[in-house]
Structure formats: structure tokens, C-alpha cells
């Protein structure tokens, strides 16, 4: 590995703890700044204020925020991500991991499908410029990319669960394979995957089409054409490579946005994944779980961005010199 690249990676890696610190502290402080905490919420209408205050004190909720933060992060570094209050008394790691597993399952499939269908589709659309298929494909991509999940899911549910009765209206399967829960190969996975893939493919196809068209217009392509090279050679050799690079960034962003996006899907379909857990945790002020989810999300994002940048740096040395990929 060239020396420049190595230093580059190291520099980026050093930033990771800093960013994590800022993000985690901000989240932690915000959570504690909320006027009502989980003890009060759980105590409900019948408990005495003195009881609530006593328990709050014992749980360390009255300590200054930085103290609480240090305590939490100290534990987190040893792998102890705290104890959930939504599922009272259970370690956060035990609560989060199965849910993360479920969210990952359908999201990975969505990612794979989105890019494996979207990229060729977008390329194809770009090459059809000037024919009737061009505006049609633009229109179709646009339509699917513009329908928010909030709307597509109830309609899909209505169509497939109620009218046709072929898909379950929500939830997740418990099928096991080789002793591991893997609900992906069941009817429960179809709705979320469908609902996420449609806009995903549309978006990627649109973007790819734009990129390909841009490359097609460049001089060297026209030169290649003039030289008599076959269209497919031109496309694969020159077009694909140049158009592909920015796509990689998108891939990174999509991967990193998994958790946030899954909140809507899982709320609407009642899928017990990490999105639904995040939402519930915020409502019930389950601080430890919130922190753990935010930490995971941020770390995944930063690492993914790092990988992307490294790949970019490897491909295109110019960027390495400039210092960072915007």
C-alpha cells in the first residue's frame, strides 16, 4: 500500500473517536435534558412523588450530566452498553442485537437489489436517449422515487394483505435455519423489501442515467465512437468506470442511513427491528438503548465513509493529494 494512502487512512481513523465523542455526548445530554425521565414515565399515575424521587436518585439520574456520561462511556468501552428500561432489567446488548439482525436482513437484500437492478436499468435508460423509452423511463423512475414509504406501505398492505390475502399484514417470521433465526426467506419479508426497493431502484436508476449521460457526452467517448469501437466496449470500458465512482458514495450513504429509514417501515409494519426499537426507546426515555443505537449508527456510517474514501483514494490518486473526498 502506498505510503500516502496509509497515512491518509490513519488520519481518518484518528478522527473517529472525536466524532463519536461529539455525537454521543450531544445525544446523551439531549436525552438527559428532557423534562421527564423513564422513572417518572414508568411510575404512571399511581406512584408517589417521593418514591419517584428516591428511585431517580438511586439510579444516578440526579448526578451532573458529564458524570453520568463518563460513567456510561466507561462501561460502554468494556462492552457493557447499559440496561434497558423499556425491557426493564435486560442488558441493552441483548435487546438490540436480535433487532439489529432483523433490520439488517431485509436492508441488505434491499441494497443488493437496488444496485444490481438500478445500475443496469439506469445505464439502459441513458443509452435509450432520444427514443420513446427515454421519457417513459424518466417518468416511471420519478414516480417511484417520489412516493414516500409512508404512503406506499399502506397501499401495498391493502393490496396484498387485504384484497389479495397473499402476504401477511406485518410482523416478522420466526423461521430458523441451522439453528439461527432467519426470517428473510418468508412472506413477511416481501412487503418491506418491496416497499424499499421500488424507490431505491428508481433513485439509483435516475442517478446512474444522469451520470452515464454525462460521460457519454464527453469527448473521449465520441472519439472512441469515431474510431469505430463497438458501443458496448465503449460503454463498459469508459462509461461504466467513470459513472460508477459517485455511485459508490451513494452506496455508502444508503448503508449508513439504514437505521433511520427503518423507523418508518417497522412502525408501519410492526416489524421488531432496530428502527422500531429506536422509536420506542425515545418515547420511553430508555437512555441506554438510545445511546447504544446512536453509537452503532454513527460508527457504521463513519467506517463506511472511510472505506469509500479509501477505495476512491485507491482508484484516483489525485483525490488523495487533495486531502479528502467531498
Amino acid at each position, binding site marked *: 500500500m502506498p505510503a500516502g494512502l496509509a497515512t491518509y487512512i490513519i488520519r481518518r481513523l484518528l478522527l473517529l473517536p472525536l466524532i463519536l465523542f461529539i455525537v454521543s455526548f450531544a445525544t446523551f445530554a439531549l436525552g438527559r435534558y428532557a423534562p421527564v425521565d423513564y422513572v417518572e414515565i414508568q411510575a404512571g399515575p399511581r406512584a408517589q412523588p417521593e418514591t419517584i424521587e428516591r428511585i431517580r436518585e438511586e439510579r444516578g439520574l440526579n448526578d451532573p450530566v458529564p458524570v453520568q456520561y463518563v460513567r456510561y462511556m466507561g462501561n460502554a468501552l468494556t462492552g457493557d452498553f447499559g440496561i434497558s428500561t423499556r425491557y426493564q*432489567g435486560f442488558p441493552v446488548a441483548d435487546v438490540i442485537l*436480535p433487532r439489529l439482525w432483523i433490520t439488517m436482513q431485509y436492508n441488505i437484500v434491499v441494497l443488493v437489489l437496488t444496485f444490481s437492478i438500478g445500475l443496469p436499468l439506469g445505464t439502459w435508460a441513458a443509452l435509450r436517449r432520444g427514443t420513446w423509452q427515454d421519457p417513459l423511463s424518466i417518468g416511471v423512475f420519478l414516480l417511484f422515487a417520489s412516493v414516500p414509504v409512508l404512503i406506499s406501505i399502506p397501499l401495498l398492505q391493502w393490496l396484498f394483505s387485504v384484497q389479495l390475502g397473499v402476504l401477511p399484514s406485518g410482523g416478522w417470521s420466526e423461521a430458523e435455519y441451522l439453528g439461527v433465526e432467519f426470517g428473510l426467506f418468508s412472506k413477511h419479508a416481501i412487503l418491506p423489501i418491496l416497499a424499499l426497493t421500488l424507490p431505491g431502484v428508481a433513485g439509483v436508476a435516475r442517478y446512474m442515467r444522469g451520470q452515464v449521460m454525462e460521460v457519454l457526452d464527453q469527448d473521449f467517448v465520441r472519439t472512441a465512437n469515431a474510431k469505430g469501437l463497438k458501443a458496448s466496449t465503449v460503454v463498459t470500458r469508459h462509461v461504466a468506470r467513470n459513472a460508477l465512482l459517485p455511485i459508490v458514495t451513494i452506496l455508502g450513504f444508503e448503508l449508513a442511513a439504514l437505521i433511520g429509514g427503518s423507523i418508518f417501515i417497522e412502525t408501519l409494519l410492526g416489524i421488531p427491528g432496530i428502527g422500531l426499537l429506536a422509536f420506542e426507546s425515545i418515547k420511553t426515555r430508555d437512555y441506554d438503548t438510545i445511546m447504544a443505537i446512536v453509537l452503532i449508527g454513527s460508527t457504521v456510517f463513519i467506517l463506511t465513509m472511510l472505506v469509500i474514501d479509501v477505495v476512491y483514494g485507491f482508484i484516483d490518486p489525485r483525490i488523495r493529494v487533495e486531502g479528502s473526498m467531498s
Partner: protein
Amino acid sequence: METRRLVLTLTGIAVMMIVVIGGLGAILLASGGGDDSTAGDDDGDDLGARVEGELRLFGPDPITLDPACASDAGSAEYIVEIFSGLVSFDLDLNLVPDVAEALPDVSDDGTVYTFHLRSNVLFHDNSRPVTADDFKFSLERSLNPDTQSTVGEVYLDDLVGAAEFIAGNADEVTGIRVIDPQTLELTITEPSAVFIDKLTYPTAYVVDQREVGDATCFEGSGWTLTPNGTGPFKLAEWDLGRKIVLTANERFHLEPAPALERVTFILSGGSSFVMYENDEVDVTGIGINNIETVRDPNGDLNADLHEGPRLDIFYIGFNTQEAPFDDANLRNALSLSINRDFLAREFLLDLVTPAKGILPPGIDGYNEALPEIPFDPDAARDLLEMAGGAGVIDGATILTSGQGATPSDILQAVLAMWEQELGVTVTIEQEDFGLFLRDIDEGKFQMFSLGWIADYPDPQNFLDIKLHSESANNEAGYSNPDVDSLLDQADREADEATRLDLYQQAEVIVVEDMPWAPLYHGKASYLVKPYVEGFVIPPFVIPNLRYVTITR
């Protein structure tokens, strides 16, 4: 050269992605890939294939299954089936002995309760019978400040020595005495007609000290995945957030013993109604969107319809301590301009019962003779004039919980009625539930809307707890010395009939004063498959599953 670079790049990307994703996946798989529960036998992909003798239905996602800690009805629903206490209620709301072999002997001064325990109540692992010592441990655990339970005190603070124990000044609760392994003596500070009712709540249930150890409400709940209870059902599996499976306790000590082999509760996902139609669950609740389809006599769901009362009340509370709602005329004006009949029958499609007083139908002491609150806009307008006219309520707000969600239809309907009949405009203020509770506790409101469901089927739980001037749960700040004295008398009254009469008298005065504008009492409306017998949704949380049988 170019091609090679391209191929290398793509391979590089692919490898990186695989590493990142694969790494994540491996970590997750290694952590068990999703099975946080006990090793139950899995149902496989579908719920369509029903195991014989199995009841399948949706259930609330509980916060905890630790009896000492449950402060919500959702958790309590499961706890009452897995664990048991000295006494409980049957489906007719009679107090019956549970682990105790008979109702307790009570001393003449009404402060000492002596329970004789059955000798044949075993913990679920069949290892040993329950003793009085187990109860002492369990009750003290609920009160122990180290356990950090938010509800232990609420139900057990009558016990002598409880206050000292909670304050940390004593090692035990002196009011709980083990006379011998089968005899438990509980002493309370003052006679109370409802102490024994409070013992039916999970905080007084018995747990196995060998497995609980020093687990608290907030830490160490692992034992609740394989609890050693004494209830009619054992917890076979708890998949956090996904499902709960109960299996029958063959050695249960009461009759009827549970007839179901298995009960599966689905905690997440899907629509219960749609699954009922597809024969994937055996019971489902009904909402306002389905009720008409169900009530259609020609439809096939009609025969499955069951209805039952709920011991609750939904009301609008007024801040009686502050103007302008300290004026009874104003409160009555507002109350009289609500068309409760329309609300309950047409608006909510008869899914609720209009309320005329505080006590819900079905509770001991319900006053059939109490007149309905009329819908009388003319009288309301007169009262409003007497109170100072519509201007007096200008800019008033009603506080409700549920930040972000649409305020309940009923509330909006009531506000529209006020606008229409009295020309007053009230604004809804919504708050996060926790903040809402705090604000009403501190009197920071003008009006609020809330519900209350019975802890035990006794008028004391409604009138005294919510409307006695010294009660901590009297958010409206209502204070009427006549009512107070009637309630105090009733508290001390030994004769049941007289007691209930006193409560009824108190209720009459309350309705005149109108610190609350009662709106409606809930009903349970649900569908039950024809092959399921004996399934009833009880008026409040009591164990009901052991009465259910499946006939196919």
C-alpha cells in the same frame, strides 16, 4: 491496463463491502442471531398451523414480568397468569382464596389478617411447596428500596413497619410475620376495607427467592425469562418484543385447572383483525372501523361477537382550585352541554357506555337509580350566564396526553359541542405522557382529559383515591368536607351494605359538584372463534385463561 484497473476497483469495492457487511453479520450471528429467549420449541414460519389445544392471540408488549415492578396493565396481564398471590378474583369478581386455602381470619379490631396457606402449591419446577417464608420474602422485596419498585408502596403501604423499612431504618417489615410454614400474619396500621383487595395485585404475589436473589426492577431481569411462578400457566418462552408462549401448569392448585395446552401471544406486527379473518389468531379486539361489519347479522363474524363491561371511566377533569373552574355553575354548564348519548351511541358506535356518575356499571355499589346526566343546552346556557358568560372561559385549554398523535375523536367532538351549544372555544394542548402526568399532579392545567381503570372492583378505588381531598391522586383538587366525611366513614365501616350506601351518597354529591365531567365507561368488544369456549375479557386485569377450552 484500463480494464485491469476497472476490474481491480470493482473487486476492491466488493471485497470491502463484503468485509464490512460480513463482519457485522458475523458479530450478530455470534451473539445468537436473534434468540434471546429460552429454548422453546419454535413454531416455525407460520402461525397458521395451530398446535392442538393452543390459543393464539395478540397481546401487549410487556415492560417487565417481575411482579414487584409491574406498573402497567400490559405487563400485569401476563404476570397474573404466571404468578399468584394469597387471594385473587374470579370472573364474577368475587374475592377468592388462591395460594391461601381460605379467606383470612381477621382480628376484631380489623388490623390483623391471618392467612393459612395451602400445602400443595408447588413452584413451577415442582421442586418445593410455597411457604409463608416465601411470601414474607416476596412482599418485603416489593417494598425494599433496593428493589427500586415504583409501585410496591402504592399497594402495600398499609402494612405496619412498611414506612420504616422503605426509609431504610429497619431490616424487615414488622407487620409481616411468619407464624409457621403454612401460616402468614399481616398487620396493618388501620382497618381498611380494601387492604385485602390490594393483595390481589402483583406486588403481593409470591416469587422464588432462590432464583430471584437480589435482582432489582432495573437490573438482572434475566430470571424473568424462566420464572418459577405458581400461577395457572408457566412461561415457556419470552422472545422480547415478539412473542410470549405460556403452557399449562398441570399441578395448578385451583379448580378449574387450565385446559389449554398452550397460549401464544403475538407482540408485534400485523393486523389482528386481518389475521383473525385468516384463521391465524383465535381472538381479536374490534375497533371502530370493524364494528359495523361485525354487527351485520348476515355477516359470518356476527356470531363470534362478544361484549363485556370494563371497570373504567373516561372523563374531563376541572381544576377546581383555580378560577374560572372553581365555579360549580360553570362546570355544570359545560357538563350539561355534552350529548353523551350521541357520543357513545352514534359517534363511538356503541363501543362505550355513556357515563352518568363516577362508578362504572358492574362494580359493587353501582347506583342503578342514579339519574343520567341530561343533555340540556338551555339549562347549560343559563348556568353559563350565572357563571359570568362565555367570556369567562375565553382562551381556556384542555390538557391531554399523546404528543404528536391526533387528539382523541371524542375530545374533539366534545369541544365541538361546547362551541356549538355554548359558543365557547377551548383549545387542546397536547403533551408527552410523562409530562402530562406531572403537570396534572402539580395542578398546572385548567382542564384535562384522562381515564382511570380499577385496580380492584371497589368504589373506594374510584371515589376515595381520586376524589378525597387528601388523596395524592386527586388531580382536580376537589375538596368537599361532606364527601370526605362520607368516604372516611365508609373506610371504617364493616358492614358491606352500609359501606356501599355511603359511597353512593358520596357519588351523588360529587355529581352535583361536577369536579369531573364523566364521559363514558369502556366496553370490551371482541371476536372469539366458535371452537374457543370460556374466553372472556374481564372488566379489569384478572387471570382468565384457565377458564378457556378449545373444542377442536
